């Protein structure tokens, strides 16, 4: 049974550096064999919309869209906070690959009694 790992990201274009490294670390966890979830909240939920991350490219890292695509292709899941999503009137029919709108219970269940996590 592989371990689990959660990366919590609360930022979008308000901090593209943190948004980017969230997915860099997530891919490191996934690549290390961990069952990995990126939890998006606050402005981070905007990353769940197709096209939003297209113009985010931080020096020293791959473009964010590519990081997110690779994360999803590798089996990573993106949990998108529902209240934050609704507050920003985002589109459920325009989610990036691997993303699902969830409430807190789904995240709590995934984390269980012991799950390492990192928050941005």
């Amino acid at each position, binding site marked *: 049974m592989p371990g689990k790992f959660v990366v919590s990201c609360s930022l979008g274009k308000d901090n593209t550096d943190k948004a980017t490294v969230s997915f860099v670390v997530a891919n490191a966890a996934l690549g290390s064999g961990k069952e990995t979830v990126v939890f998006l909240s606050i402005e981070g939920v905007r990353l769940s919309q197709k096209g939003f991350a297209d113009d985010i490219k931080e020096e020293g890292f791959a473009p964010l869209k590519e990081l997110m695509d690779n994360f999803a292709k590798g089996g990573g899941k993106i*949990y998108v906070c*529902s209240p934050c999503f*609704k507050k920003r009137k985002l589109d459920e029919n325009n989610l990036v690959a691997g993303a699902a709108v*969830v*409430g807190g219970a*789904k995240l*709590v*269940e995934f984390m269980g009694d012991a799950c390492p996590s990192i928050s941005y």
Partner: protein
Amino acid sequence: MTTDAIKTETLLAHAGRHAAARCAGCRAGLDPRALLYSFAMGLKDEPRCPACLASAIGRPADEFRRGLDEYLHSRPCYREALTVLEGSAPEARPAAAAGPSPNFRPRADAEWDAGDLGCGDLALELRNRVQALPAGAVLHLTATDPGAPEDLPAWCRMTGNPLVMAAHPDYWIRKG
């Protein structure tokens, strides 16, 4: 891909993931058709055998099977998935005959329209309402929050109050 093709792919992936699963109720083995019945009833992560599904909604097993077979055959995505999984070619029925979910409504002992409550607000109040019920009672919950389809089954699993059926925004939860 068409919506039906995407849905067929989803159904086949689901059947593959649960290929060795046993009924969440009685531990009986599950054939592909039983997995699709469970998926149609909104129980994608806790598949159950037809007998347990029928019992959970208070219908005789044969009536339940007939209703679900009718439903599966009338929706192109399920029909295609059945063809692949059973290696047969079921007779097509008009898609217009089917609603978005099988036409079964479990008996409910309590009702709660939670409107657009979601996440923590929904989970906390739901816990209060279910705790107030006698063991075995079924709550019919209406919750339109877009996170509910993922969140409510997770809540049910964690709290030990089984999800009887889900057809968003309607959910039926039994007090464990």
